[in-house]
């Protein structure tokens, strides 16, 4: 855990997500609790979100040696009230003059202001109001991104999906001219798919990202994050050919350069060096548990990657010595046997275990037998279904033939209606 450098990690982010990630880290780690809380407060003091400032101070009162800064809060609040008034007056005057572009800008500024104050619902409303005043596809994308950002912060994933689709329809995105915007939308879509556990889509979406995104989206995600997410989801879902394409993908190479560990991981996996791949995964783990988006998915993803390694390991052999296999996968033979048994029962590995000699034998499926079995089963179900359906058809001919409620209860129902 000590290898994890919070300060360096958090410097990748800006804005609200920085604070949220710090709070998240503080909640989930005892060692980093006070440091994360301190950094969060420090970050909050540079902004105007006094509400969150109060909450953080209350929550981590025991871990902070900092006192609640009354003067700062009230001055910021006063300042904010003035700004709000000013913005509203401006917006009203734009409205009376009916200048579309200015009205849009006005709503946008108001939205940005609410966002900075942490009033996400109001910000959402303001951003939505700009919808009617969008004149170019750039405007629409801007509007969509603003809404998506709020969706991400509030965890409202349906909104994200809705506005990702909307943005994808604009010419700038569809034709892929604006690479930064394309990347942003791709990230948003990936986050949505991550939430619905469609890991393969996540990987594919993230591969659409371009490194020119730079730090522009740092209030949501860092380039390193993209590399890690994409790497893990790809490892869990891609087959060998797809992995090869991923390593060969010139634009994604730039991402992988940022996180050499992930690149090595994919390389190892592709070249079947499972021991180092699995240790690599373990080294990555401490960082991942602090990731706001990935945390819930680390476990299933790791599980999947492990299963895939096992499957891949046994695939070329007709028999495998499980003692050696256990060494490669860094576990005991007994545990390995259990893991493999589960995979066999899920029909992911076609093999049988010789538990006595600890050898795994590949299993040849007898196509002829299988076909016979399937033909007989199909025939049975056809006969059964057809017979039943003929009877049903004949029953249907008699309209009145059905189980009916007793007359007494029928009356009661009518009365109730």
């Amino acid at each position, binding site marked *: 855990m000590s290898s994890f450098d919070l300060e360096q990690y958090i410097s990748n982010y800006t804005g609200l997500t920085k604070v949220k990630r710090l709070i998240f880290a503080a909640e989930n780690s005892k060692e980093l609790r006070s440091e994360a809380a301190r950094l969060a407060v420090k970050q909050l003091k540079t902004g105007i979100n006094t509400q969150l400032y109060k909450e953080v101070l209350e929550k981590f009162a025991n871990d902070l040696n900092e006192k609640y800064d009354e003067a700062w809060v009230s001055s910021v609040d006063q300042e904010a009230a003035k700004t709000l008034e000013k913005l509203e007056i401006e917006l009203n005057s734009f409205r009376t003059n009916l200048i579309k572009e200015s009205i849009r800008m006005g709503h946008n500024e108001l939205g940005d202001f609410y966002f900075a104050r942490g009033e996400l619902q109001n910000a959402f409303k303001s951003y939505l109001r700009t919808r009617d005043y969008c004149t170019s596809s750039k405007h629409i994308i801007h509007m969509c991104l603003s809404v998506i950002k709020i969706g991400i912060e509030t965890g409202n994933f349906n909104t994200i999906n809705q506005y990702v689709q909307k943005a994808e329809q604009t010419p700038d995105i569809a034709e892929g001219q604006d690479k930064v915007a394309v990347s942003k939308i791709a990230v948003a879509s990936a986050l949505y798919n991550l939430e619905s556990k469609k890991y393969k889509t996540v990987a594919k979406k993230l591969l659409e990202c371009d490194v020119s995104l730079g730090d522009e989206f740092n209030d949501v995600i860092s380039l390193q994050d993209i590399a890690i997410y994409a790497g893990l989801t790809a490892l869990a879902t891609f087959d060998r050919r797809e992995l090869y394409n991923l390593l060969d993908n010139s634009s994604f190479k730039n991402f992988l350069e940022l996180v050499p560990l992930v690149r090595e991981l994919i390389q190892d996996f592709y070249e079947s060096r499972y021991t180092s791949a699995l240790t690599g995964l373990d080294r990555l783990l401490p960082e991942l548990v602090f990731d706001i988006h990935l945390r819930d998915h680390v476990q299933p993803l790791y599980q999947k990657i492990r299963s895939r390694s096992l499957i891949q390991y046994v695939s070329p052999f007709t028999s495998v010595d499980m003692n050696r296999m256990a060494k490669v996968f860094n576990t005991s033979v007994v545990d390995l046997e259990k893991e493999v048994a589960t995979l066999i*029962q899920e029909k992911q590995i076609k093999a049988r275990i010789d538990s006595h000699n600890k050898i795994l034998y590949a299993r040849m499926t007898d196509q002829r037998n299988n076909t016979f079995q399937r033909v*007989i089963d199909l025939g049975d179900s056809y006969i059964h279904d057809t017979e039943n359906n003929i009877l049903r058809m004949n029953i249907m001919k*008699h309209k009145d033939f059905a189980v009916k409620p007793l007359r007494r209860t029928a009356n009661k129902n009518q009365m109730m209606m």
Partner: protein
Amino acid sequence: MDQVVSLIRDTKEADLDTLKKTLESVLEKIRGNTHGVTNALGQLDPSKHSMGMVYLLYAKSQSRDVDPSFLNNVEFFLANLHGKHTQKAASRFVQVCHIYTEICRDNALYSRGIKALTTGLQRFRPSNDFLTPLHADVLCLCLKAKNYKAGFNLIENKIFDIDPNATGLTPKDMLLYFYYGGMIYIGLKHYQKALGFFETALTVPAFALNAIMVEVYKKYMLVSLLVHGKHTGLPKHAMNIVQKHMKTLCSQYYEFATVFGSGNIDNVDKVKKSFEDNEETFKSDNNLGLARQCMQALAKRNIQKLTATYMTLSLADIAKNAGLNNAAATEKVLLRMIENGEINAVIDQKGGMVSFGEEVQAFDSPQTSVILETRIDQSISLANRLKNIDEDITSSNNYIARQLGVREEAYSDFERGPSSNRGGGIRRMFEYFR
């Protein structure tokens, strides 16, 4: 009384409907005259006077204490009745039969009843495609007598059609038939077939639930555990009301099935616990035996899974994985399974090891071709049946009218002449053909 008898004798086939009305009206009067009725029954011939005899038998069955001669009368009638005529008085006939069945059931005259009713049923039904209310009666007696063989012959004959008018069949009779039939299949250990019967019962059209359906559903769940190892759910065409309410009505079964079907080998203990939790329910529903068989099947199923996963495994490990108590018990179960040909395995008692062979079924015996041939024959005859149904439908008036988009009124308009304004449909039809 004599009048009635002579009336029955003299009525020609064409006038049966009038006779029915008359008999309905005098029913009250002849009911009191038990002695007369018995006499009259002796004078009539079932093959000619079925209709009249049905009413006389009905009258006799309604008297306060039923004469022992009633049984003989009914049996004589059942053995000789005239199908078409009896169908005209179906509902009364069915009532007579139900009463007869009750008497047989309460006096343990099972085999006598089964024999008489089976003959009667064969004469009474329009063809062997049809279900009659007597079916359920016969099966009920079979179950009571534990004479599953007798019922087996009856339920093996597939039901394709119903005719409530000719046979007086009610939905209740149908549910009972498939319920009893399924139980007989269970008794004979034909679980797959039992499942099919229960499924049919649960897909009978319904606007309300009745107790039979609930009982059917409980057994359905347990049997589907036996057959498929999990609860497969109802077919899509089951009525909404069944799909909706059964979960709550049979919640304990549902819970048991869910645990049972979750598939992990290590959940044997959970299944055991669920079984013990619900044992009282199973017992009070008379399903305890079935539930116990599920538990046995679970161990077997787990062992079968192991054969697909392992080549060798120690007895102790098998016991652990299959949820059996100890190695000795496991050995017993394994032995029985090997004897029944359910698994292919060799036990090494010295080392406590079991080696599993590949599956035995190789599909290279003459039996395989017999199996296939019977399936093919069945399929062909079903296909023919479907073809006939299809022809019937495509040549029916309703269908043709619908196809052409012409309502009946269009025909009548056409007859009235082309001047009518409302003949658009039929004119369109002609233009279409031009």
